[in-house]
């Protein structure tokens, strides 16, 4: 489960109404984090986008060949439509150009040549086919037939797993055929299309030098009006030039295509390749004017990771009316907001939004924006003004930003920009929250419930609750702070008391706020019993059994966890899986049994050994190493069999880490008591052996230990941890139990052998 899940479902407060179950945050298992920041820029902010707007603003979404193919086809159809004065509809043009089989096209030609022959039904239904027949557009029909023949060699079949079906011999023949028809064709527009087909064939046939020759030979003979086909041809020319090794000249052409023709923008961007500064300078020299030079900076700025103030400056100097300026600006602001927004907010574990934002860069960007505003050379000055205000906000001068926004609100006319302004104002309001009381909590609930700006921008959820998390933390409300960013279940691997207590305190209030109710609920159900169980588990793990019993007793019996485990069984070896006991115990039952044993042991005075031994076993078995580990823990990982600070092991996806109950102190205490009081040597031997196991566990998870749970080797136990082994091998070596252990326990045998 990705953190996206958090992002999407975290704090989905009140989807419909507060009556409906309120979900703050949930998780189920493995969590992967991403690093995106907050963004408050509206999609489609620029109402009259330049051709590159969608490219720059949603570059990642667009970088897909299929989308480019579709854009390209659409542009092609649109051009046919324009050239035929809209005599045919786009759907029919698309069908005839891209879908009609060659045989049908030949029937169309026959019908066009001979007016007595009727069109087949499928063509009769097609307005473009009808138009071509009626007007005897034979050159166009011949061209479409020729294009159909070229298609298998040059058009992607749609199956990514197929090899391109290219037959070089056939392609060369087609090229020659096209070359001849080109000369005979009268229409300049159709000639242009032939030139495209011929050059494309040469390119895909790998005849790169021929592409250059054909371009020089054919293009001067075409006198068509400006057409998108010129860009397609240039694309193939640039491709051939690049294949011949001149990536600089090719990049210059790709930059011009990128600048002016959206249909080939993605491939132009991908093919643009400048390797070093020398090549960049050479490329700039190829530009014929400032606009062409600016286009080079535009394509360089389009890189998703660019820091485009440099490019903005250059484009502005070269061509202040450049249509791409504002898109690059907005894209740059988007990057800045992901760096600067929420840097003082509480970060979710695993996120690294607190990078090292370059404040110098932000200041320089704002200075540039202000220069542009003052010089008034650009189009759409309002967007620059709005950006100026937002940059002030990002700089942290909230008071000034608010003043700016309110001032602009009076002058801005564009509805979209006004909408954007309201979004900035809400972000500013959230950012300026300084303390939280019941009133603020209710106001927040209202924002989540009904604020239209909040609903428009997905980032508001994280932004609001990350901000609240840091405020709650500052005010000592660890529980509320935790819940702003995590589901209640995230407490299970490490039930942190301070968080649980803070959340349980909410139940003590006379009246919960709506937000508080959401913090202590999941799927609309109040989670008091789970919180009590978590608290009980935490108290148990710090051996405060009386207190744990009091807490756990508050949970109705039917909601208490049940364990089928015999904690008083001794084992020579520990196993991950254990035999299930027929008896059922709740945690309270287990605590009562342990308290009872303690009491009996104390009362029995010098006869207390059996009771203390059993108690030692219970402490051992509910620890990380025992088969009843889940009595005091919700999640145990084998990979934590090593040192972890304070026994909290880092665990991917667990915000508080995973606490393992590795302390052997209580178990050791009772085994030692049992050994000292034991009336029988056999019991003393058993207690010594169990104590030796405790010591081995203590060492294996100690800081300096090199023990590996995965290693086949028996670890070398340092002298100070070998005390009970020694005792067993000397004082109790004549017991039956000792002989049994020697037989069954390889590592014990090994340690004893070393002592001999």
């Amino acid at each position, binding site marked *: 489960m990705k953190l996206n899940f958090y992002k999407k479902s975290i704090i989905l407060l009140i989807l419909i109404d507060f009556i409906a179950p309120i979900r703050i945050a949930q998780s189920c298992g*493995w969590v992967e984090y991403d690093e995106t920041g907050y963004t408050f820029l509206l999609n489609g902010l620029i109402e009259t986008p330049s051709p590159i707007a969608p490219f720059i603003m949603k570059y990642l979404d667009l970088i897909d060949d299929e989308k480019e193919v579709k854009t390209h086809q659409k542009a092609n159809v649109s051009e046919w439509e324009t050239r035929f004065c809209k005599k045919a509809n786009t759907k029919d043009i698309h069908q005839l150009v891209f879908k009609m089989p060659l045989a049908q096209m030949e029937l169309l030609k026959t019908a066009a040549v001979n007016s007595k022959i009727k069109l087949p039904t499928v063509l009769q239904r097609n307005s473009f086919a009808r138009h071509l027949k009626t007007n005897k557009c034979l050159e166009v029909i011949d061209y479409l037939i020729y294009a159909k023949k070229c298609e298998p060699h040059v058009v992607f079949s749609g199956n990514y797993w197929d*090899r391109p079906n290219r037959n070089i011999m056939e392609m060369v023949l087609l090229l020659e055929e096209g070359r001849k028809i080109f000369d005979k064709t009268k229409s300049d527009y159709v000639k242009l299309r032939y030139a495209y087909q011929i050059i494309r064939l040469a390119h895909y046939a790998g005849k790169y030098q021929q592409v250059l020759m054909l371009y020089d030979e054919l293009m001067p003979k075409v006198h068509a009006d400006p057409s998108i086909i010129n860009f397609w041809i240039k694309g193939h020319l640039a491709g051939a030039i690049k294949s011949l090794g001149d990536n600089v000249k090719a990049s210059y052409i790709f930059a011009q295509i990128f600048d002016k023709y959206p249909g080939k923008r993605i491939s132009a961007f991908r093919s643009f*390749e400048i390797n070093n500064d020398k090549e960049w300078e050479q490329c700039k020299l190829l530009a014929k004017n400032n606009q062409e030079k600016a286009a080079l900076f535009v394509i*360089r700025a389009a890189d998703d*990771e660019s820091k485009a103030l440099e490019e903005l400056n250059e484009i502005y100097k070269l061509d202040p009316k450049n249509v791409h300026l504002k898109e690059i600006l907005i894209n740059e602001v988007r990057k800045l907001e992901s760096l600067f927004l929420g840097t003082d907010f509480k970060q979710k574990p695993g996120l690294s939004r607190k990078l*090292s934002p370059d404040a110098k860069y932000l200041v320089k960007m704002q200075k540039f924006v202000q220069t542009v505003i003052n010089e008034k050379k650009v189009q759409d000055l309002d967007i620059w003004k709005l950006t100026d205000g937002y940059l002030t906000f990002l700089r942290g001068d909230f008071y000034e930003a608010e003043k700016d926004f309110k001032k602009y609100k009076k002058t801005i006319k564009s509805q979209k920009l006004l909408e954007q302004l309201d979004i900035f104002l809400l972000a500013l309001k959230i950012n300026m929250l300084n303390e939280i009381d019941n009133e603020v909590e209710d106001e927040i609930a209202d924002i989540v419930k009904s604020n239209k700006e909040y609903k428009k921008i997905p980032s508001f959820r994280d932004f609001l609750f990350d901000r609240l998390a840091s405020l709650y933390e500052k005010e000592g409300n660890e529980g509320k702070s935790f819940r702003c960013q995590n589901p209640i279940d995230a407490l299970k691997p490490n039930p942190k008391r301070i968080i649980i207590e803070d959340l349980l305190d909410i139940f003590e209030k006379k009246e919960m706020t709506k937000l508080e109710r959401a913090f202590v609920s999941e799927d609309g159900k109040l989670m008091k019993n789970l919180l009590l169980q978590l608290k009980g588990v935490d108290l148990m793990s710090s051996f405060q059994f009386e207190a744990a019993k009091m807490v756990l007793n508050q949970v109705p019996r039917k909601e208490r966890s049940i364990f089928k485990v015999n904690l008083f069984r001794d084992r020579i070896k520990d196993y991950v899986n254990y035999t299930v006991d027929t008896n059922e115990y709740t945690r309270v039952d287990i605590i009562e049994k342990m308290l009872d044993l303690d009491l009996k042991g104390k009362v029995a005075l010098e006869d207390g050994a059996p009771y203390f031994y059993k108690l030692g076993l219970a402490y051992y078995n509910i620890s990380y190493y025992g088969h009843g580990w889940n009595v005091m823990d919700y999640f145990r990982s084998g990979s934590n069999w090593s040192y972890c600070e304070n026994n909290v092991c880092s665990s991917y996806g667990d915000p508080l880490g995973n606490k393992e109950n590795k302390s052997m102190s209580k178990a050791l205490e009772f085994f030692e008591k049992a050994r000292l009081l034991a009336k029988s040597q056999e019991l003393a031997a058993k207690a010594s052996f169990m104590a030796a196991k405790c010591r081995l566990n203590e060492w294996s998870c100690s800081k300096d230990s090199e023990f590996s749970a995965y290693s086949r080797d028996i670890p070398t136990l340092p002298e100070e941890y070998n005390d009970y082994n020694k005792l067993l091998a000397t004082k109790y070596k004549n017991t039956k139990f000792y002989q049994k252990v020697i037989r069954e326990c390889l590592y014990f045998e090994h340690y004893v052998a070393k002592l001999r």
Partner: protein
Amino acid sequence: MRKYVLLYILLISFSCQKPKVKTIKALYHWTSNLEVSDEKSHQIQNLGVQKIYLRYFDIDWNEEAQKAIPKGILSITNNIIDSIEIIPTIFITNRTFVNIPKAQLFPLVKKTNQKILEISKSFQNHISEIQFDCDWTVSTKEKYFEFLSLFKKVNANFISSTIRLHQVKFLEKTGVPPVNRGMLMYYNMGEVKKMSTENSILDNEIGSKYLSKLNKYPLSLDIALPLYSWAVVFRDGKLIRLINDVLESDFVTTKYLKISKNHYKVLKSTFLYGSYLYEDDIVRFETVMKTDLLEAANLLSKNLPRDDRTISFYHMDSKLINQYETELLQKVYHSFNFN
């Protein structure tokens, strides 16, 4: 009688000897065009390379088509020496398994197999193994493992899978792929995204933490060792790009300021192998030092069970492989030989 005594002595001496352990020398070829120059061919022969793991194609998830598709299909300009065994290697992105519905797994297996057979037709070389490379995670292991199991049904060759160090460390969580052998990638071990990381390619201090876990890993492991360098580019503290095959000499210009052992600050915006670096970017140059490579080989050989295994360098087209002497690379290969 003397004959029997001799035979007895011979038998005794052989039975006391541990069997020799063989190292199979290999290289990875990871670019999408196979163009083996005479010089490269010579190098391969000098090294005594017996196997080449040849990247045939990648498989990635296509959002638009909602399908797994092949990418970067190998084009062949000239061939590898016939006597060398080829192991078709297919890299599958983890997101493929994140997105692919289970019902599409078997069709993908069939298409993958067909594509492998189609590319393999271009070679005369012996092919007996196919390797899959995927950085699978807990959430994708089920589908990746099913893919591998299904593939074994349609292709009778030996199947291997790359294993990353974290997959060894967290084997309980990430599971063990159902293949004949694993190829442990003993590199990419540091946190490349962290600015403070010294060398994310090879850091024996980090690597040694995994060593004790290796002999417990349920699959027999071959070893891939790194032979590449790159520049890790940080912008505003965030990793933005890895530039492959960079050499330290590339930073000896006035455009960079060396700020630590292997960190450079960009003083003036500049192009570096096709990437435009901006003023104030920080570049960490990472390479594989000869001493580290030898140490890695020694550490691994000491900690792995005695077994015949393939040792492969990743990869044969890097500039670094040309900078390292054949003797050094031979020494690394031989570190795994036991007599």
